C-alpha cells in the first residue's frame, strides 16, 4: 500500500481512512491476511502505537478481525463491507452537496447538472 | 566490571606499547651484535657505524620511557575527556572502577618497560662479559649480592618507593587532567595544574623530610648507621607520598563525578 499522510489530521485517522478505502474497493480482498503491526508500521513509517490504534478502530467497525494466533484478517462479511462502502459513499455525497451549496446551487439545479453530465458521458461512449 | 575495563584498557594500549617494546628489544639485540662485531673489526668506519647502532639503543631507551608516558597520558585524556568520553562514562561502571582500570594498566606498562630496560642492560652486560673474557656480569652480580646483604629491608623500602613513586606520578598526571578539563582551555589548564601539583608535591616533600632530619627521634644520634637513617627517610617519604596519592585520587574522583565537562 502507498502511504501518504496529510499534516492536519491525526495520523491514525488517516490510516483508518486508507484501510477503509482499500477494503470497500476490494483492493484488500475479504479474508485477506494483514501483515503484523510492526511490518505495517514500518511500511507506513509510523509509530506502532498509532498503527495499532487504527487497526483497533477498524476492528470496532467490523471491517477487520483478529484471530488469536493467526493474525489479523479483512472481514469476510459482505454485508459489513457493503455497509462501510455505503457509509463512505454517503460521506462523499455530503461533501459534494456541501461544496455545491457553497457555490450557490439549489437541489434541483444540482440534479439537472447531474443528468447533463450523464448525457455527455453516454454521448462520449457511443 | 573492573576486569572488563582492564581487558579493554590493555587492548587499547597494547597496540602502541607492544610494538614499541619489540622495537626496543630489537635495537638492543642489534646493539649487542654490533658490540660483538666491533671487537673483531679493524676498520674505523665500520667501528664508527657499529658504535652508532649502540648509541641508537641508548636513544631508544629514552624514547621508550618518554613514549610510555605519552601513550598513557594521551590514552587517559582521549578516553575520558575526548569524544570517546561519551561512550566511556555511559558504561555501567563506577568512577572508581574507571580510574583504577587506567591506573593499574598504566602501572603494568610502566613496570614492563622498566623491566625490559633492565633486561636489555643485563643483556648488554652479558655481551660485554662475552667480549675478551671481561667478566662484567660477574662483577655486577657480586656487587649486587653484597649490596642486598648490606641494605636488607632498605631494598624492600626502595622497591616500595618505586611503586608508590610511579603511582603518585600517574595520579598527579590524572588529577592534573581531571582538574584541567573543567575549564574551556582544557589542555592548557591541565598543564598548569600539573606544574601546580608538582609544586605542592615538592613543598610537601621538603616540609616532611627537612623537619624529619632534625626531629629528635630522627637525629643522627638515634640512628647508629646510615642505612637505618635512610630506611627511615624512605619510609616517611613513602608515607607522605601515599597520603598525597590518596588526596590526588579523590581529587580526580570528585572532578569526574561532579564536574565532567564533555561538550
Amino acid at each position, binding site marked *: 500500500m502507498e502511504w501518504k499522510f496529510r499534516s492536519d489530521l*491525526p495520523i491514525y485517522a488517516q490510516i483508518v481512512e486508507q484501510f477503509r478505502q482499500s477494503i470497500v474497493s476490494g483492493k484488500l480482498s475479504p479474508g485477506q491476511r494483514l501483515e503484523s503491526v510492526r511490518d505495517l508500521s*514500518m511500511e*507506513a513509517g*509510523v509509530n*506502532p*502505537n498509532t498503527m495499532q490504534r487504527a487497526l483497533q478502530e477498524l476492528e470496532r467497525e467490523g471491517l477487520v478481525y483478529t484471530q488469536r494466533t493467526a493474525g489479523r484478517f479483512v472481514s469476510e462479511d459482505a454485508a459489513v463491507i457493503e455497509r462501510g462502502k455505503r457509509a463512505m459513499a454517503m460521506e462523499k455525497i455530503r461533501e459534494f452537496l456541501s461544496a455545491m451549496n457553497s457555490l450557490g446551487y439549489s437541489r434541483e439545479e444540482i440534479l439537472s447538472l447531474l443528468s447533463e453530465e450523464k448525457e455527455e458521458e453516454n454521448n462520449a461512449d457511443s | *566490571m573492573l576486569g*572488563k575495563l582492564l581487558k579493554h584498557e590493555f587492548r587499547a594500549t597494547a597496540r602502541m606499547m607492544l610494538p614499541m617494546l619489540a622495537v626496543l628489544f630489537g635495537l638492543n639485540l642489534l646493539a649487542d651484535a654490533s658490540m660483538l662485531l666491533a671487537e673483531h673489526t679493524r676498520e674505523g668506519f665500520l667501528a664508527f657505524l657499529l658504535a652508532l647502532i649502540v648509541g641508537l639503543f641508548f636513544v631508544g631507551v629514552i624514547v621508550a620511557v618518554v613514549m610510555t608516558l605519552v601513550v598513557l597520558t594521551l590514552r587517559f585524556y582521549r578516553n575520558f575527556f575526548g569524544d570517546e568520553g561519551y561512550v566511556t562514562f555511559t558504561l555501567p561502571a563506577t568512577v572508581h572502577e574507571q580510574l583504577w582500570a587506567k591506573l593499574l594498566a598504566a602501572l603494568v606498562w610502566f613496570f614492563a618497560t622498566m623491566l625490559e630496560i633492565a633486561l636489555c642492560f643485563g643483556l648488554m652486560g652479558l655481551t660485554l662479559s662475552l667480549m675478551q673474557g671481561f667478566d662484567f656480569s660477574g662483577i655486577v652480580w657480586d656487587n649486587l649480592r653484597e649490596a642486598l646483604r648490606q641494605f636488607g629491608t632498605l631494598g624492600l623500602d626502595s622497591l616500595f618507593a618505586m611503586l608508590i613513586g610511579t603511582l603518585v606520578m600517574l595520579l598527579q598526571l590524572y588529577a592534573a587532567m581531571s582538574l584541567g578539563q573543567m575549564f574551556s582551555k582544557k589542555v592548557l589548564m591541565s598543564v598548569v595544574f600539573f606544574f601546580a601539583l608538582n609544586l605542592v608535591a615538592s613543598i610537601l616533600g621538603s616540609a616532611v623530610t627537612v623537619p624529619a632530619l632534625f626531629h629528635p627521634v630522627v637525629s643522627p644520634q638515634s640512628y647508629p648507621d646510615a642505612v637505618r637513617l635512610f630506611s627511615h627517610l624512605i619510609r616517611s617519604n613513602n608515607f607522605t607520598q601515599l597520603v598525597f596519592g590518596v588526596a590526588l585520587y579523590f581529587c580526580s574522583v570528585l572532578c569526574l563525578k*561532579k564536574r565532567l565537562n564533555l561538550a
Partner: protein
Amino acid sequence: MPILECRMLTKRYGELAALDGVNLAVEAGHVVGLLGPNGSGKTTLIKLANGLLSPTSGEVLIGGKLPGPETKRLVSYLPDRCCLPDWMNSEQLIDFYSDFYEDFDAARAGEMLSHLKIDAKMRVRAMSKGTREKVQLILVMSRRAKLYLLDEPIGGVDPATRDYILETIIRNYDPEAAVVISTHLIADVEPILDEAVFINNGRVVLQKSVDELRAESGKSVDETFREVFRCWENS
C-alpha cells in the same frame, strides 16, 4: 513507574539556567519527541539522564533510580556526534559492547551491518561520516535497553540514511522500552512519535500526544511548533 522522570530538574551554569524546573514523565512503550531550537536545553536534559552531568537542583530518575551504573545498564545513548574510538573496527566494537552490556544483541548488530554492506573489518578512521553514524546507530539500537536517548539522530544525514534510521527505530519498537528523540527537525520525525514535548530556554512549554495536537489544532506538530516558537521569539 515512568521509565524516565524529571522532577523540578534544574541545571545552572552561573547565572544561566540551561534547564529550569523541568517536570517530565516518559512511560514505557512511548516514543517521545524532545522538540526545541538549538540551545533550548534538550542536550542538557539528555546528559543529565545519562549521568554525564549533575543537576543543580531537582532530580532525574531512570526506572525510579538516580543516574549511576545501575541506570546506565538500562539506557542506550546515541550522542549527537561520533564518539567511537577511531582505531577500532565494527567487529571489535561489537565485541566491546557485548562485553559491557548484557542486553546487547551481537547477532542483530552483525545483521544490520551486513544489510548496510558495511565491512566489519574496516576501522572507524577509514569510514566516511555517514558510515560512522550508521555504525553508531546500529550499536545503540542493537541493545534491548529500557530507555533509548537519541540526540539529533537525523541531523545532517542524507534522506536515505534518515529513512533507514526512522525505520530502524520503528522496527526496534519494544512496548517495555521508551524512546526519547531530541531534534529540531520535527516534520521528519513526527510520524513516529507518540508524544511531543516542546522545550525552550530550559523550560517545558508543552507536553501532549501527537494525535491530540493534530486533532485540536488541525495542523501538524511541525506547524504548531513553528507557531509556538514564533510567539516566543516575538515576546
